[in-house]
C-alpha cells in the first residue's frame, strides 16, 4: 500500500520542509503581533483599544482560507517577491502565506494573552501600584510574566492549530505537505495512502510542538515548585 513512498518520498520531504518553514514564521509573527495587539487592547487609550478589538473581530470572524487568498493577491499586487527557491519552497508564495497565517494567529494569541492577564488577581496590580510602580510597569513586569505562564498550554494549542491550518496554503500554490499528498494521490489515482502519510507527518510535527511547549511550561513553572 505504501510502496509509492520509495519513489515519492522526496516530495514529502520538500512538503514537510515548507510546512515547517511556514509554521515557524507564522508562529513568530503571531506571537509578536499577539503581544502588540494585547498591549493595544489593555492600553488606556480608547482609540488603541478600538483598533485591537476591530482587528480581533475581523480576523477571528472570517475564514482563514479567504484571508490567505486575499493577502496573497493583495501582496503580490503591491510588491514583487522574486520566486527564489529555498528547500523546494518558492518564496513569492511562501512569504505571503506565512504572513497570512501569522496575522490570523495574532488575533487568537492576543485573546489568549488577555485571558491570562485577567486570570491574575487584582491584588497583584494593587501591590505593584501601591509600591509606586506605574500602571505600565506593573502590567509588564508583574502581571504579564505571571499571565504568560498561565497561558502556555493555551498558546501551545494555538501553535498546533497553526501547523494544521497551514494546509490552507495549498490554495495559493504553496507546495506544503497537503499539496504534495494531493499531487501524489492524483498521479496514483488513489488518494487514501498519500493522505494517510500526510496525516502522519502533521501528527509528528504537532507532537514535536507539544513536546516543546511542555518544556517551556516546565521551565516557566520551575520557580513555583522550588522547595525552600
Amino acid at each position: 500500500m505504501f510502496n509509492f513512498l520509495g519513489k515519492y518520498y522526496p516530495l514529502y520531504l520538500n512538503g514537510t520542509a515548507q510546512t515547517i518553514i511556514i509554521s515557524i514564521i507564522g508562529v513568530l509573527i503571531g506571537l509578536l503581533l499577539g503581544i502588540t495587539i494585547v498591549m493595544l487592547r489593555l492600553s488606556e487609550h480608547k482609540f488603541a483599544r478600538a483598533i485591537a478589538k476591530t482587528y480581533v473581530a475581523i480576523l477571528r470572524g472570517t475564514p482563514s482560507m479567504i484571508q490567505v487568498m486575499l493577502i496573497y493577491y493583495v501582496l503580490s499586487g503591491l510588491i514583487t517577491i522574486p520566486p527564489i527557491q529555498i528547500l523546494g519552497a518558492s518564496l513569492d508564495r511562501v512569504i505571503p502565506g506565512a504572513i497570512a497565517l501569522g496575522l490570523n494567529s495574532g488575533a487568537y494569541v492576543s485573546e489568549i494573552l488577555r485571558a491570562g492577564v485577567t486570570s491574575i488577581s487584582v491584588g497583584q496590580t494593587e501591590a505593584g501600584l501601591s509600591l509606586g510602580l506605574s500602571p505600565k510597569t506593573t502590567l509588564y513586569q508583574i502581571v504579564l510574566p505571571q499571565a504568560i505562564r498561565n497561558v502556555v498550554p493555551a498558546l501551545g494549542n494555538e501553535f498546533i492549530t497553526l501547523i494544521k491550518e497551514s494546509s490552507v496554503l495549498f490554495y495559493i500554490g504553496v507546495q506544503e505537505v497537503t499539496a504534495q499528498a494531493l499531487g501524489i494521490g492524483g498521479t496514483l489515482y488513489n488518494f487514501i495512502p498519500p493522505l494517510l502519510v500526510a496525516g502522519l507527518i502533521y501528527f509528528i510535527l504537532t507532537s514535536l510542538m507539544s513536546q516543546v511547549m511542555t518544556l517551556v511550561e516546565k521551565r516557566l513553572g520551575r520557580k513555583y515548585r522550588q522547595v525552600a
Partner: protein
Amino acid sequence: MTQTRIEVSHLNKTFGQQLILKDISFKVVPGEKVVLIGPSGSGKSTLLRCLNRLESPTTGKVAFDGQDISQLEGPKLWQLRQQIGMVFQQFNLFPNKTVLENITFAPRQLKKVPTEAANEQALALLQQVGLADKANTYPQMLSGGQQQRVAIARALAMKPKLMLFDEPTSALDPEMVAEVLQVMKQLADAGMTMVIVTHEMGFAEQVADQVLFLADGELLDQGGPDQVFHHSQNQRTRSFLKQLS
C-alpha cells in the same frame, strides 16, 4: 515643615448611586498611629485606599504633607505612592519572585538602587521581621504569617513616610496573628506613622494614639483609645465593641 502627614477633609465617596463614605474629616500627624474600626462594609478599607489613591475621593480633600492629593494623576501619583507603604489582607506577594526579589524589586526599579545595596537592605529588613533565613524562598513556601511579614518588609523597602494596613491579620490562622502584630508593634515603637484597619481590638488599644469608629460610611466616634474603648458616649460604638468581646 508640615505638622500633618495626612489631612482628610469632608471626603465623600460614591460607587454609582451608593454613598460609601460620608463627609469624613480627620488628621494624622507624623509618628501617630491611627486605628480604623467598625463593622464590615462600613467603608474602612475604602477610606484607607483613598489615602494612597487606590481609590479616588468623589468630593472632598486628602492632603499628604500639606499637598492636596485627591486629584493627582500620572507620574505625580506614582511618586506619591512611593512614599506610602501598603499592606494588604491577602499579602499580594509576587509569586514568581523570591522573597528577596519581592523586597528589592521596587527600590531597584524606582530608585535605581544597585542590586547589591538593595539586597543588603532587604536582608536587614528580613532580619527585622525575623525571616532572614527565607531570603531565597518563594512566597508559596511560606506560612500566611511569614508572607505577611515579608509584605511588610517589601513596603518598608521604599522607606515610606506612612504605612497603611488593610486588615493585615484577617486572612491569617489564629496562631499566626501574634507574629504579624508583633512586627507591627515594633514598627509603631520605632516611630512609623501608621493607619491601620483592624478587628484586633487588643492590639488597637495598645498601639493607637487615635481611634476612629466608622459605621455606614460615617465617622461616628473619634478619640484616644481609652476614650473610645471604655468611655464612649456613642451608642453604636458601645454596641459594636460589646459584640466583639
